């Protein structure tokens, strides 16, 4: 009897309401669901990353299922979350296969999407408050070295583009500015507090580890 688990990591990015859809993540979910439905197995287990649990909590549930095979599908723009979940899964099982999804083969160009490279002309044409969709493709200039709460497809690593984006938000989405500033501060500091919690580093959960020398 083969027990197979298929998982997708949590989508951790924040955008102060700018982004309503992440098409690459959605494509990854579809692909993961297809793997879950179609791959040969006698018993199946699926997690779409939407449970709100930390990576360790998800891994414990996987361990309880005791799978023979674990497949983790990760949208290329969510690689850091994928690494966090993969590390947690490897604590409970040796059989973790990680697949990165870099593009949705069914991609059709949509002029409403954030372009693949910073394009001030595109930004200049955005006049309405309609939510954005992030493209179903990994950006060309993708640096996953530093943590950031912002989606990579917003190209926040490009300083001049980010400045233009901030001006656009100031003009067209002023109600989002307070939260946007909060996200930018974390981006500048190279931290993603949600990723840290996902990785089990909540201050209260780590309290004993932090105080071990003085208690």
């Amino acid at each position, binding site marked *: 009897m083969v027990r197979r688990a298929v998982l997708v990591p949590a989508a951790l990015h924040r955008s102060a309401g700018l982004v309503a859809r992440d098409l690459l993540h959605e494509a990854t979910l579809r692909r993961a669901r297809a793997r879950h439905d179609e791959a040969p197995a006698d018993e199946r287990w699926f997690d779409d990353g*939407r449970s709100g*649990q*930390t990576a360790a909590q998800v891994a414990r549930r996987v361990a309880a299922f005791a799978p023979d095979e674990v497949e983790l599908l990760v949208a290329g723009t969510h690689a850091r979350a994928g690494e966090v979940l993969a590390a947690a899964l490897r604590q409970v099982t040796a059989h973790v296969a990680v697949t990165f999804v870099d593009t949705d083969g069914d991609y059709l160009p949509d002029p409403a999407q954030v372009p693949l490279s910073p394009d001030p002309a595109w930004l200049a044409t955005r006049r309405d408050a309609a939510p954005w969709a992030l493209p179903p493709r990994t950006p060309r200039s993708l640096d996953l070295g530093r943590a950031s709460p912002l989606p990579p497809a917003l190209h926040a690593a490009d300083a001049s583009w980010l400045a233009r984006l901030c001006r656009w938000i100031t003009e067209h989405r002023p109600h989002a500015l307070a939260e946007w500033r909060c996200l930018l*501060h974390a981006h500048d*500091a190279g931290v993603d507090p949600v990723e*840290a919690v996902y990785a089990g580093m909540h201050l209260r959960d780590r309290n004993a580890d932090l105080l071990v020398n003085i208690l």
Partner: protein
Amino acid sequence: MSAARELLVVPPDGPLTWLFPALRRHDRPAPPDALDMREGMDVADVLTRADGRALRVQHGPRGGVVLAALRAALRRAGRDDVPVAPWIDPDGCLEARLLARSTAHPHPLLPTARELDGVPFFATDDRHPDGPVQTRLQPGWWGVLPGDIWPDDARAAWHTHLRATVPELALQALAFENHALAGVDLFFETLTRGMRLPTTSARSGPLVIGIDGIDGAGKSTHLTLLEQWLTAQGLRVARHKIYRHGVFHDTVTDMTRACRDGHALHLWPLQRHAKLLDSLKVWRTEIAPTLDADVLLFDRYVETHLAAGTGRYHHDPQAREMLMDYPRADVVFVLDLPVATSLARLAQRTGLTVDENPYMLQRFRTMLLDLATARGHLVLDATGDVEALQQRMRDEVQRARTRRAEAP
């Protein structure tokens, strides 16, 4: 612009509506001519538009934070003469409206829980229908948490409730919980820090060299060798230590020990602030008098503070601003050492500090390496041959000296 002598101020959105944007629909439009900070203003914008006129800030949890921030900004600008006072809005702030329209959530372990439109939130001030709720949480966090002290079973119940009702927001809520319990006030930071965190600019003066790394990496050894090499070339070298374990050791240890039950986590940042203030003192009393030297050598530099703060509670908005006196370094070396090796070397010392534990050392190491990547620091394997490492350092220092000499 209005010619009124007094302006009403409506505070911007805070963490509760960042988490649950749907609750915004219960807010009301600002009065005519009011300064509506929900339209993207921060404190600096308000003071610019007010142009010296009196300000009355909508009374409420967020309003209290805005009021305090405005007064502090005016004080710094020498404008204590500008009146800033609360405005009791007869239609109520958003928090009051939410309380009035919500129902008590029937959860036995979460007595402060309310519910509106399926959104769970908490009333943690004196307006709770059942009476005042004591909490040390910063007011900007109103609604996000049931308080700062509650039993483990209640905390677990709240997390379960979040995952059941708003699973896509549960992890963000826990991240807010982390900051709120640690005393980090993200709402205040967005009012006062502008769009980007402050950065230090380069300045003329001595060449600035720092060596960072976790404990036991060999910083002192290499600093001594560098100092000897530079001095032998006829350069005046001043060596400094800005991160001093011994100072306030007993005080910060006692403050940190008080966090052991997980209910006084707001003391964590105080421990960090004590060390930041000590580094500021070191700048004024020890470093500033040596700015006529040719080279300043630092045993740990500002990156140590940044790594310690973000490594512990994932955000340290104040540290960068507090360290603005320190110039941008010309060269920073990060001596990278595995945590296990560091702990083995530390075992030979008597007594460990709070931070010298496996978890914090790993976080510290990770953040230092991350900063090195972002800032272009040179990362060296601390377990490598000392002479080979020292030669690499000297080559890099020489390149830095050349850059300085060639700079316009």
